[in-house]
């Protein structure tokens, strides 16, 4: 065995590729560290109880983001309430009922198309259809319904994936006992796809939390403090929209940093939940 080293050209190639990989990973890693660190360091000192618990007042010249927090919660709730039955129902139709491959293909193609449409277009169509045509005005409800369309493919896909993991034998077993299709779905299929629904919900919450372009013209940017039901029919800015408004239009950078830090923490939490839920269901399914 000769102990001759690799020829220079190969060595150069390997070295270059290694270097490029390391540089890229370093850039990606540094980006995450910088973004998270910068936002938290600049933002957390500006988060005060007063900021979190009040509404903005022009008279006192104070700013509070309670309305924005509530609006975000309202929009998440309203969106989920509508999108869950739609998405889960569509998934059940696709995996349990649909016999016609053309319809299945059409629905799946539609879902793919929806997930590729940019949110600004959702915002525009939401404004035209919900705010103007359906006469909802600029309101949280119109915003929620717009987000329903955006999140439909997500819920549908995660539910569909978990439905596929429900063993065929369960269904056959239930049918063998003489149960009707609906009963089989209710008692066997639906409980089996809880993990998909939960995962879908978390993903949807993450997406709603981060959405802004679709809400700007559908839910508006008011900062009024409302209860859940008045809230839905009136305009209001979510945290992301508020961040945009404070940063870009009002130049309130301290508030903007505080909101950014809150959003960052929430994003970390959502990711953490998604990872934990994924792990939990994986373990459960493998038992």
């Amino acid at each position: 065995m000769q102990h001759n080293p690799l020829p220079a050209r190969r060595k150069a190639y390997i070295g270059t590729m290694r270097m490029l990989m390391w540089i890229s990973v370093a850039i990606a890693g540094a980006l995450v560290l910088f973004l998270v660190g910068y936002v938290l360091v600049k933002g957390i000192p500006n988060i005060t109880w007063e900021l979190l618990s009040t509404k903005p007042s022009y008279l006192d010249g104070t700013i509070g983001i309670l309305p924005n927090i509530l609006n975000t919660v309202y929009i998440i709730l309203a969106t989920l309430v509508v999108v869950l039955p739609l998405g889960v129902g569509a998934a059940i139709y696709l995996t349990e009922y649909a016999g016609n491959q053309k319809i299945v293909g059409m629905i799946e193609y539609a879902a793919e198309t929806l997930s590729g449409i940019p949110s600004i277009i959702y915002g525009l169509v939401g404004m035209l259809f919900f705010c103007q045509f359906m006469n909802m005005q600029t309101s949280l409800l119109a915003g929620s319904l717009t987000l329903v369309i955006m999140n439909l493919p997500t819920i549908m896909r995660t539910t569909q994936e978990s439905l596929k993991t429900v063993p065929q034998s369960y269904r056959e077993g239930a049918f063998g006992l003489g149960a009707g299709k609906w009963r089989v779905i209710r008692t066997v299929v639906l409980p089996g796809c809880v993990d998909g629904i939960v995962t879908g919900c978390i993903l949807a919450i993450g997406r709603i939390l981060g959405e802004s372009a679709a809400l700007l013209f559908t839910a508006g940017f008011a900062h009024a403090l409302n209860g859940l039901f008045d809230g839905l029919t009136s305009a209001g800015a979510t945290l992301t929209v508020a961040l945009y408004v404070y940063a870009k239009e009002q130049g309130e950078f301290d508030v903007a940093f505080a909101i950014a830090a809150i959003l960052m923490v929430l994003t970390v939490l959502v990711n953490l939940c998604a990872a934990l839920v994924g792990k939990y269901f994986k373990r459960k399914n493998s038992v």
Partner: protein
Amino acid sequence: MAIKSKKKLVENIIHGVFLVLGLVTVGCVLLITVYLIVSGIPAIREIGLIDFLFGKEWASTAAEPKYGILPFILTSIYGTAGAIVIGVPIGFFTAVYLAKQAPTKFKAVMESAISLLAGIPSVVYGFVGMMVLVPGIRKVFNVPDGASLLAAIIVLAVMILPSIIKVSMTALEAVPKEYEDASLALGATPVETYFRVSVPAAKSGIATAVVLGVGRAIGEAMAVMMVSGNAANMPSLFQSVRFLTTAVSSEMAYSSGLQQQALFSIALVLFLFIMLINATLNFFLKGQKEGT
């Protein structure tokens, strides 16, 4: 007998309900398409397709308004291309490293970091870009205002990074180990094996990642709006520019009449771009399913 037929009726009704739920998605796509076409056509008709698409000047609020969206189209194309040129190599090499070489623990940490990057709201990207990147560009390149095409390109490059890394990683991890073994057994080193065997074997997946990145970059509005300055200039790296997406959002709040209709037409153009990208994406996905 009566019970049985009643039961069957109920089953049929439920089947129908689920069919309707399934078709909601299709309905939504139709709704969006129809609305965009119906509201986008009138302005194009009034302005004239050629003047609209290839007009170099946009002055919607001037006494004699001009509605040429070529600056927006070109800005969107240049901006997306720039983001791809910066983002794809970084994402690609990161994906190869993480999928093939990284120690398990480091890989797990990086994977969650990248999911986090994917989850950060676009306004946060825009805001950080506004606070860090824009002043940075102004100082480094000594230009009057850092809010520019370059700032938008960098922000977009960062924003498309997670999807490029994730999709490429999935494709690289799906490459059968047998291919890599064969290459190693021929005396290729691991690094040579990854780039000469694994990457070509995963090429349609990596292409999918790039197309997804294009889609995300061309459709992004808020982050871009916060860092690109929003003036309707023809694209130039250090100038304030307006994208197709930001053209829609920046004037929508106060527009009316022909001006507003022209914004709908811009959205229609953007939509057509996205549809084109989707078609490309489906083409690659099909290639992936059939196996290379």
